Every structure is written in C-alpha cells, then in structure tokens.
C-alpha cells in the first residue's frame, strides 16, 4: 500500500524558497487537498511529488521507498502515478480513444485487453460515443472527462490533480467535484489535489493542507480547518470570518475597542498583539444591552443588505473596526442604528500570529 510522505521538502529557485520545509503524511486511500492562493507553492509541491521537479532539500517517500531526494530523483515514468493537468494536456493529434489507450500501450498490454479496458473506461466516464473524436472537437467538460479517463485507466497508486476544475463553468464544476470523489472512493488510490477554491477543497478532501508562502499553515480535516483555524491566514482564507485585532490582557482575554473579550484557542501572553476570529453568523445583533452576558460590544450599523434567506450587516465598533454579521432574515435593523453585538466566548478564537 502506498502512502505518500513528504519530509522537510524544500524547493529553492535561487534564493527564493518556493516550497519551504514541508512535512506531510498521506495514508493510502486518502484524498488530500493542497489549498492556497496562487504562488503559495502548491503546484510546485505537486510537481515535486510527480517527479517533474527535483527537491533542493528533504525527501518524498511512496510506501517505503524514497522517490525524491536531492541526491536522486526517480523519473516520473517510474512512479506509477497519474496526473490531471489544469490544461488537461490532451494530445491534439490523437483521438479520445488513443489518448485514453496511451498509458496501456506504454505498458505493452495486448491489443484485445487494451480495447476492452478502454471501452470499459469510456463507458464509466460517459465518453463511449466520442471515442473517435479529437480533443479539439470536445466541450470543456468532455475534455475534462477524457483527462480523467486517461489518468485512471492505468490504475495508478497515486493520482495527482492540478486545479482540474478551474476551466469549467460553475454547474459542471459542482458535478465533476462529486465525480472525482466518487471515482476516488471506487478505486481507492491516494489522491493529491491542488486547488485555490476552498469550497472545492471542503467538499472533496479528507484532509486539507492550507498553504501560504511555501509552508503548510494547517493540515487537518475540513471540519477542523473550518471550526478551528489555527492562524489568521487560515481563518481569512477559509473565509466568512471576521478577524479583529487587539492586545491580550491575560491568558484568555483580548481587549478590543475598550472591551475585554474572552476567547478560546491559542494561549495568550499579556500585552501581545493578538488577532481574534469569529464567524459572520456567530455574531448576534441586539438593540438593547442585556444584563449578565459577557463579550458585549457597542456598535453602529453602517450597511444593511437583504439577501432573501438572511440579512447581511456591516457594523462599526467604537474604534472604527468594521465587522460583517449575517443575521436571520426576520431581524431588520436600519442603517445608522446603535446596537450591541454579542460575541459568544466559545466562538471567539484567538489565533497564532
């Protein structure tokens, strides 16, 4: 069984470390998403795993053999992996069937077996009617499926996907997302999936590794990443959170706009700059100050948008900090109203800087 393990993996171009000391273990059969903004090193990491790029330091092991290290790098063709490229990289001079059959021909299988396997794969991917077309004659979604079929037919131990859905329109993207997950569950290979789209990562991955500036900021299950972001970067990138900055008063209080908020999360040192994250729909808007509740902040409504099933408010704290609040559609508060915000202590997460 082939787990994939990255140990202290580093890739430098000149002085610039594009991938900076990454360690990650992916057990066999799991699907990992490398998630991050463009330029965070996620694609380079994928190409390191594929063997197109040689590491500057660290190593990559598949199962119990080291496939990449600065000393020697196994060429891609000997890694028993498959990859789906962002551009799909379908060969324009070959038909759909030829594209799909290519990997099998390289493995010197018999003609009859190849034909049989290709037919089966084309049926699974709903391409059987298009077998003799050329890639240029296909729609984006069809091309995507050809790329998928071509990668899967060789039954790889590891499947690498480089932003496979970024060229599709929204509907198709949703559909292919589930298709990729379904095929993964069916064949149970180890999958590494690169994307910058957090909802894509949330819906497909077993583990999300959020990357920033060549490093992994946090690697955990989607729930964990969503509920308990460890750093400001992760909280911002996953989105729908407010990040407010203040100064730590003691181990679990942060002073924001003159009020001490009780927080969970990182252990704090009094006096340090600290960021606190709270989801937009975890903030409550109250018209009067209730008694006996902690974490109350006075604020003013500066914008109010009705979204149908919810209302989207922008509020401003006494020190000018802006927060976004998603409230139920029933509660309408006019722009300019003075309100009280309740930030439940269990929802306020102090972040590591």
């Amino acid at each position, binding site marked *: 069984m082939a*787990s994939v*393990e990255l140990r202290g993996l580093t890739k430098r171009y000149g002085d610039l470390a594009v991938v900076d000391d990454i360690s990650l273990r992916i057990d066999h059969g799991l699907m990992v998403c490398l998630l991050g903004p463009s330029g965070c090193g996620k694609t380079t990491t994928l190409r390191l795993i*594929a*063997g*197109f790029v040689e590491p500057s330091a660290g190593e990559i*092991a598949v*199962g*119990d*053999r*080291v*496939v990449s290290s600065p000393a*020697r790098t*196994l*060429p*891609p*063709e*000997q*890694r028993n*992996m*498959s*990859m789906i*490229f*962002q*551009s799909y*990289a*379908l*060969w*324009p*001079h070959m038909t759909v069937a030829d594209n799909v059959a*290519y*990997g099998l021909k*390289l*493995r010197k299988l018999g003609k009859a077996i190849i034909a049989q396997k290709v037919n089966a794969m084309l049926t699974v991917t709903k391409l059987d009617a298009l077998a003799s077309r050329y890639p240029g004659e296909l729609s984006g979604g069809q091309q995507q499926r050809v790329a998928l079929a*071509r*990668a899967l037919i*060789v039954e790889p131990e590891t499947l*690498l996907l480089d932003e496979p859905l970024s060229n599709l329109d929204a509907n198709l993207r949703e559909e292919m997302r589930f298709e990729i997950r379904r095929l993964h569950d069916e064949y149970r290979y180890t999958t590494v999936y690169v994307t910058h789209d957090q909802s894509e990562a949330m819906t497909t991955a077993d583990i999300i590794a959020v990357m920033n500036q060549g490093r992994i900021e946090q690697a955990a299950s989607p729930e964990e990443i969503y509920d308990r972001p460890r750093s400001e970067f992760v909280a911002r990138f996953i989105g729908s959170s407010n990040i407010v900055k203040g100064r730590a008063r003691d181990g679990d209080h942060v002073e924001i706009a003159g009020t001490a908020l009780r927080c969970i999360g990182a252990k704090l040192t009094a006096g340090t700059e600290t960021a606190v994250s709270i989801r937009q729909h975890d903030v409550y808007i109250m018209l009067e100050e209730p008694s006996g509740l902690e974490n109350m902040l006075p604020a003013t409504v500066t914008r109010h948008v009705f979204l149908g099933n919810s209302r989207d408010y922008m509020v401003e704290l006494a020190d000018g900090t802006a927060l976004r609040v998603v409230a139920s559609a029933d509660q309408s508060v006019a722009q300019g109203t003075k309100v009280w915000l309740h930030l439940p202590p269990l929802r306020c997460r102090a972040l590591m800087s």
Partner: protein
Amino acid sequence: MTVTAVAPARRARLDLSWPVLIGFALILCALIVLPMSWLVYFSVTDKGHFTLANFVKLATDPTFIDPLVTTVILATSSAVICCAVAAPMGWLIARTDMPLRRTIRALVTASFVTPPFLGAIAWELLAAPNSGLLNQAWRALLRDPQAEPLFDIYTLPGLIFVVSCYTFPYVFVLVANALDRIPGDLEDASSILGGRTWTTARRVTIPLALPALLAGALVAFLQAMTLFGSPAILAIPAGFHTMTTKIWSLFQYPPKLELAAAASLPLLVLTVLLLRAEHMILGRRSYALVGGRQSDPRLVRLGAWKWAALGFAFLVLLNPVFLPYGALLNAAFSRVATQIVSFGNFTLRNIEFVFFELSATKLAVRNTLILGVSSATVGTLIAVVISYVTARKAIAGWRALAFLATAPIAVPGIVLGVGLFLSYTRPPFVLYGTLWILLVAFVTIALPAAYQQLQAAFRSVSVDLEEASRILGATRLQALAHITAPLLRTSVIATWCFIFVGVIRELSAAIILFTSETKVISVLIFDLNESGDLGAIAVLGLIMLVITFAVVIAINRIPGFGAIRLRNA
C-alpha cells in the same frame, strides 16, 4: 512504517545532456565564433604583427571614406522611401475596405521573395540609359532618337530606387502585421467617447503602429546597408562603391585580406547596434496587445477613394513586381534582351543556350540543389535540437546555445563570407574550394530565423503535453517521439523549405566563397551580368523564381504557418 530502502538505481541511462551541450556549442563555434574571431584578428594585424594601420587607412583613405558615405546615404534614403511607401500601403491593406487586398498582399510577398540582385538586373533591362526599355519608350514618345534618357539606373538615385523596391516589403510586413493586431475595440472605445474616424486614426491607431514603423525603418536601413547584389550590379559600372562592393573588391587580385577584415567590422558593429535598437522598439510594442479577447480590426470605409487607393497600390507594385518581371520574361524570349518580343525576334535560343551550351549551368544547378537540400537538412536538424533544449530549458547552459544560435543574425552575409574565408583557407580546416564552406555559410545565415521559428513552435506545444505522457510511463525519448514530434512536423517541414529558399537566392556570402568548381546559380547570374549575357540571366532568373515560388506556395499551404521572413541576398 519505517522507511529505509532507497529507490533502486535508475536503469543505466547515459546522461546525454553534457555531450549534447558541448557538441552543439562546438558546432556553433565553428559556424560563428571562429569566423568572427579570425575577422577581428585579421583586422588588427599585418602579416602577423599587431597594428591599427588597417583602421587608420580605413578612416583616412578617400577610397574607403567615399563608399562609407555612399552606404550611409543609400541606407538612409532607402529607409525613408520604404517607410513613406510602406506605411500608407500597410494601412490601406490592413485597415480599409480597399478592393483586392489579399491579391496585393500576395504580390508584396512576391517582391519579398525576388532576389534583389535579380531585381537589379531587371531594372538594368528597363532603365539602362541607352538600351533600357523605358528609355526606348520615352524616345519613341518624343519621336527623337537622340533625346536624353529619362532614367539612368547606373547612378546613386537609381541604386537607391532599386534597393528600396526590394526592401520595402520588410517595412510593409511589419506595419501591416502591427495594424492587423490592433484590436478594433481600441478604436471603438475612442469613437464611443466622441472621436471621429480621423481623430481616432490619429490618436489611437497610428500611435499604436508607430513602433512597428520605426522598427521597419531600422530593418530597411540594415538591409540596404548590407546588400551586396544590387550595388555590385548598378554601382560598379557607374564607377562608385558601397561598403559591401568595396569589401568584395578587396578580394580581387591582389587580395588585401587584412583591409577587407577591417572594412567588415564597421558593418558588423552597426548591424549589432541597429538590431539592439529594433529589439528595444519592438520589445515595448507589446502594449498594443494588452487586453482580453481580441476583436477583428475595424475597416475604414474609403468610399469612392478606394479606386484611387487601388491605383496607388498598383502603381507602387509596378516597380518591384510588374515591370521587372515583364522585362525578365521579355528578355528570356527575345533575340536581343532589350527589344520587345515580337514575331520577328521571338526565340528559344536563350533557353537552349542556358541548358545545352553554357557548361556552367549544369554544375551551378547541381551545386545549388545539393547545397539547398543539405543546408536545409543540417540547418533544420541543428535548429530543432537547440530550440528543444532552449524551449524546455533541458540542460544547463541553454542560454549560451540560444545566444550562439541567434548571433549570426547580426552578421551581414558578406562579413560572414569574409570571416569564413579567413577561417577555412588554412589548416587545420581547409574547406575553401569545396562545397563544405558554402554549406557552413548557408547554415549559419539560415540558423537564426530557423531557430526562432522552431523555438516558437516548441513553445506552442505546452510542456504539459509531454509531462502527461511522462507520468503515464513514457521516457523522455518516448514522449518526444509520440507527442512532440508529430505536433511539430509541419513547423519542421516549413523551416526546411524556408532554409532551402534562402539558400537558392543567397549571393553575398557565396560571392566571396565560391571557386570555379563550386559556383551556384546566383553566382552564375552575377558572372553572366559581367559578360552582358542578359537573355541567359533572364532564363536562369526565371528558373530560380519558379523553384522559389513553388516552395513558398508549398509552405503557405501548410496550415498554421504564416508570414515568412527572408533575408536579402
């Protein structure tokens, strides 16, 4: 899980990158570095001693200063004339609804592929002071056989005119392509803000095309400056020299090689400087292409003026295409080259003479075909390997290879001829007197353009396509054979044809390097011109054009291969 085992050693695979790098670096050195080194060495020596006397002579002797001045006048005026004609032509064809635009573009291409020396000979037929067809017509018109000739092609203005005829396509292609590429949106954006047609043209379209025109002027200057054929045919009988003919005359008996080397260096330096300038100008042009999806260029409606425009275009094309081709055709079938063909003097004598009596023809045609095929094959091969290495950055040191492969573009043909002569007439490499030295010259001349074309082709084949094949189990070579090679086939064939055509028409390097056994068609035509055998020239010239056009049309049939760039002979 403990991880102990290391990946098994790769299948014994020779690392070919260093031998490839060194091998091709050596080839390129033999092609370009060695000749240029000898050139510099000779220019600063006299019989083996270091001296600057050659340059002193160059700078003080009027027989060198005059050609230099002539060359500068020739190049400057040609550049100005070319721009003045090519800019309106380019605009009419790319941006207006003038009729027959495609035909006119094709005709400009025809003047593009005409070897300039052939054009010069055709203009001798047309405008020699006494026998020229146009002058004969002029006298007939005046009914005065003793009238002063209307034109005299054997003058500096005559030379400037002929050189401009065959340089103007370079400017035209640059300007027309630039205008093609300016998206109509940019003009629409100006109109929607209230700009009238002419305001828009003046404030948007013309400024966007200006860099191309400027670059065109530089290219025209460069071409006119380094041209050998036309000045040799028109200036020498008139009793003056340009730098190129002066260098050539230094090779006549008694040869003065050191002086020839020294006289070559200013041409080389100027070419390098002008190319840098062109690069800077065109490098900044990319702003014309900024933006998302491009819309088709918007055509200006000329109304009734379109017929005037068409007349202008045909008037321009009269000079490089209709008149010269007519004169050549006429000369080929006339008893006297400068008499209009009639029932009385129609003859196939010239054809018979060229094919059956002139002993040099067979040899020259054979040599030309051998050199055409071998230069095209060798040149394409070298260009394929180097462009692969550089487009894929496959080995360290690819930058050096790329530089060496593009460097010859800065070496005028005649300068390269001098350099190769100096390099390969002495041990250990004695190639002079063989076809090999011509092969070296032709490959070197063709290499930069071939390399640039193929590199663009390699770039257009995404690395992903090769990598997709690798990850499915193909080795580097298998990926090349299955994926890259089939995708590049048309570009490779086109490059081959392109070099072949270039070789057929090359004169300026060949004129320095040929011997009686290694004559090629272009040299033969040049020889026949000196002996005044214009009918035979016309036949040979037409053969040359037929071969050239056949190949050019074949190239244009290949899909996805557009404008071709040929170098002046």
